[in-house]
């Protein structure tokens, strides 16, 4: 049985797809057979970031509607073994993601995969609800600013009331907070919320903090998950997040670029 992880946020543009790409790549690098599924039907981006847009023949909706088999639609990543991409359809709308259809596809994938990473669309409409409904774990991607935190709070409420686990009364969806676009200087200047502020409002365990970085933009423009960019802080921060997701204990890094070496010595061990 695969573990189903939804990457969600409520708000758009906070880094869900970037995170889905890097987390799934990281899990595959660790040897887990992983698929990343784009739920953003009509606005698909994941294939761009994963650099497989030219290889899309069939998509998620085709599989749901029985027009293609799962194996026909799954795209195997060329850089990382064990990693597969299930792209969204660009020409349909979100209603094509039927409850039964999504369930059927996820069940079929669960048999062969270790992890299914669901890249949620923004908002709290049908597509977003479908992406989180079957989740075992949720990575809530949040920028350190008030509106993003508010939307994340809303999504957490939905996870607790509208997910399959909530409806069945099973153990609740395991929640992780991933703070992206964190800029220490702007926090110092009071332009951004601090980690403590965000934690205070959302009060869920912190999976990682991804520093704001040009590397993220470069990576997505080049069609490479930033986690593959091992020399960058953002890449390493994602690697840390994957390790924590798998239960490893790691200290937070890159919170303060100037004092990085010092912090590393203090906390990094």
């Amino acid at each position, binding site marked *: 049985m695969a573990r189903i992880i939804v990457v969600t946020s409520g708000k758009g543009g906070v880094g869900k797809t970037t995170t889905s790409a890097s987390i799934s790549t990281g899990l595959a690098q660790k040897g887990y057979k992983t698929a990343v599924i784009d739920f953003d039907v009509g606005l698909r981006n994941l294939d761009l970031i994963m650099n497989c847009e030219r290889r899309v023949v069939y998509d998620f909706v085709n599989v749901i509607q029985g027009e293609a088999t799962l194996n026909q639609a799954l795209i195997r990543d060329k850089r990382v073994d064990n990693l597969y991409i299930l792209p969204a359809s660009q020409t349909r709308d979100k209603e094509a993601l039927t409850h039964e259809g999504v369930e059927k596809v996820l069940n079929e994938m669960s048999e062969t995969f270790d992890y299914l990473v669901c890249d949620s669309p923004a908002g709290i409409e049908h597509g977003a609800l479908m992406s989180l409904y079957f989740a075992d774990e949720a990575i809530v991607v949040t920028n350190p600013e008030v509106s993003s935190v*508010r*939307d994340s*709070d*809303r999504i957490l*409420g939905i996870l*607790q*009331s509208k997910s399959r686990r909530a409806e069945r009364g099973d153990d609740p969806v395991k929640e992780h907070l991933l703070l992206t676009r964190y800029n220490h200087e702007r926090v110092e200047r009071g332009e951004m919320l601090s980690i403590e502020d965000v934690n*205070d*409002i959302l*009060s869920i365990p912190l999976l990682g903090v991804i520093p704001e970085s040009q590397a993220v933009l470069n990576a997505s423009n080049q069609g490479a998950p930033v986690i593959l960019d091992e020399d960058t802080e953002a890449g390493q921060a994602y690697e840390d997040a994957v390790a924590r997701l798998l239960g490893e204990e790691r200290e937070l890094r890159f919170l303060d670029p100037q004092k990085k070496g010092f912090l590393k010595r203090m906390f990094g061990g």
Partner: protein
Amino acid sequence: MTESAAMAGTRDACFEFRGATQTLTVLELRYFDMEMFEKNLRDKIRQAPNFFRDLPLVIGLDQYEGNLADLDFFQLIGCCRTHSIQVLGVRGGDEDVRRLARNASLAWLPAGRAGHPLPDPAEGDTAEAATEAHADSDAAPGAGKVVTQPVRSGQQVYAPEGDLIIMAPVGAGAEVLAAGHIHIYGPLRGRALAGVHGDSNASIFCQSLEAELVSVAGHYKISEDLQDSGWREPARVRLNGDALVVDPLGR
């Protein structure tokens, strides 16, 4: 408040017994003279006809001055009935009274503590006076509701009876409502409405007042009006007359 004094039967039983406390109006009888009684009663009813219509009433005998054995219950009840007052029972008196009450198909209640006289219903709007009188001594029934998880934006938690206790933050955009008090062991960033059925004695307690809106029995204040007292501090919000006041907690 007494909860489930006696539970009878299983799930399949067609009823169960529950303990309940109800505020009733007690007619403290000092002496009984049919003509005087009817005249006084009529005067009272004229002042506040709505209050007395179908009023459940208990006859209190704690202050009765005459000989109880001579008291004619049938006459008394009949007089009340003709004025649409429903006599439920008799409070106080001895075994003889108990027997007389039984003969008159009335419930007998043991002598209670001397209740404070009701505020004269004629003084206010009659219907309102009645509800307030009830709310006064009738604290919310049941143990209320306890929530241990954060209340998130977009979520609503409602305790239709009794108090609401939340052992976590109430997020911005969340709403918590209770018939009684609301206790929040964490910051209150959303909306909190206590005493939603009109209990003006209800309060809101929180460890940090950062609310979008607080309301007690329909009187409310929005965030903008809360900035000056107790903002981001532990606080109690209560109703004082028609005004919501914020008291600091534990300082």
